């Protein structure tokens, strides 16, 4: 994706980089609307992430850290930048790549090739975990059973657990993911659209799960997706960032897609909107009269859960019993975040289901 260093006479001939005042600008930063050159962009991009890491105390020296790596743009840039900063600023971290194979032919198998290349390129050990091994079902199997709706619900729930299991296997202290500012802004909107107060209160935290087995953090929380995409395409050195970029074939019907379109339109009009939505999300306070779900553990597998069974167990049970709709569907109501409990059919004790719309990628 390299473009030649061609004509410069019409671009920025009368303007110079805002930061160094020497070179011609190549990018207008959405965050600040500054026009900056390539070299200043790299510096400022990397330095800002370093500051986010330091100011939010994301890591401690000596920690084993797994990078959730899908082979896509965010996780590839994350792996590269994190290993660079680890070196440059001596964070003292032991970094690993952790990949989840959901079993989506033509999508995940290709992107995993990218992660395997990253393993060699950055010298970071890679662990791959598959849904097949963990749950006995690939996404291809699941979609064959449930059709093209609600796929993302299954996948998102399973992937989150899979990452935690993988992290436990690798005996790491922390997980990092490449969620960027756009993603988090989308999630805030999604949670508002669904009245999911519990998630709304958590989704802007830069570190989550500190009281659980594996805390996870998002160093790209304030990094714009546009800059993450531009970063590798301007990089001219031989370790050119190589990432995989296609939309998951099962995702077109995901609800998140609507929030994403909206955010992109907003960004066009007022780029700061993305960071401002995150700020609003950070400053929300839940009314003390609102009833919030309590966090316990799943009776079946011990994973963190606010219901008797965790979502993954409910979904898996549904799949195994040929009841693919179990765990899906609406039963949500109440302005204060109360959810109506819906008990499903036969066998064993009455189980309450927390149901939600399709297309969730919960945080």
């Amino acid at each position, binding site marked *: *994706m390299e*473009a*030649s*260093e*061609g*004509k*410069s006479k*019409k*671009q*920025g001939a009368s*303007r110079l980089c805002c930061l160094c005042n020497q070179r*011609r*600008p*190549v*990018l*207008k930063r959405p965050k600040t609307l500054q*026009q900056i050159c*390539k070299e200043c962009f790299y510096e400022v991009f990397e330095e800002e992430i370093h500051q986010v890491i330091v100011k939010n105390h994301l890591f401690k020296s000596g920690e084993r850290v797994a990078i959730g790596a*899908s082979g*896509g*743009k*965010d*996780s590839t840039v994350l792996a590269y930048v994190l290993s660079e900063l680890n070196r440059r600023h001596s964070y003292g971290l032991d970094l690993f790549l952790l990949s989840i194979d959901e079993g989506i032919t033509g999508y995940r198998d290709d992107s995993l090739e990218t992660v395997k290349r990253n393993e060699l390129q950055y010298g970071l050990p890679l662990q791959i975990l598959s849904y097949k091994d963990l749950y006995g079902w690939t996404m291809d199997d699941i979609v064959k059973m449930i059709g093209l709706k609600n796929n993302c619900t299954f996948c998102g729930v399973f992937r989150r657990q899979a990452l935690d299991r993988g992290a436990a296997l690798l005996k790491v202290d922390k997980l990092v993911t*490449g*969620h*960027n500012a*756009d*993603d988090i802004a989308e999630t805030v909107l999604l949670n508002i659209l669904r009245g999911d107060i519990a998630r709304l209160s958590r989704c802007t935290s830069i570190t989550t799960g500190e009281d659980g087995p594996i805390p996870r953090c998002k160093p790209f929380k304030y990094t714009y*997706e*546009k800059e*993450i*995409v*531009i970063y590798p*395409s*301007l990089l001219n050195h031989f370790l050119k960032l190589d990432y995989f*970029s*296609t*939309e*998951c074939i099962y*995702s077109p019907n995901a609800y998140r897609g609507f929030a*994403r*379109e909206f955010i*992109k*339109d907003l*960004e*066009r009009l007022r780029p700061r909107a993305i960071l401002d939505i995150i700020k609003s999300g950070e400053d929300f306070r839940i009314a003390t009269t609102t009833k919030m779900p309590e966090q316990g553990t799943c009776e079946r597998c011990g994973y963190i859960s606010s219901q008797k069974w965790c979502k993954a167990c409910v979904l898996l049970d549904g799949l195994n019993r040929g009841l693919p709709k179990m765990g899906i569907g609406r039963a949500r109501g109440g302005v204060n975040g109360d959810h109506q409990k819906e008990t499903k059919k036969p066998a064993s004790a009455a189980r309450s289901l927390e149901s939600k719309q399709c297309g969730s990628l919960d945080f």
Partner: protein
Amino acid sequence: MQLTLEFGGGLELLCDSEKIHKVNVDLPNGVQELTMKDLLSWVRTNVIKERPEMFIKGDTVRPGVLVLVNDCDWELSGQLETTIEDKDVIVFISTLHGG
């Protein structure tokens, strides 16, 4: 004029999975200069083979598609008003995919 068009971030799938296209674009009649606006229209007709709504929305690119003209963000050169010259390299990258 001879131009090099590059498609990334999944957009190549709209053009027969070809990432790089070397094309010859003729100026519309009576026009002295080619703008990005003209080029987009040309690309939509001549290069995009399917699902044009993933690339174009109205007059301009779909939100979430980055445009670089000779390695430079088109926001700096006037977006649709950017003038295109012979041998220019234009890169379109979609950001709308998983990370």
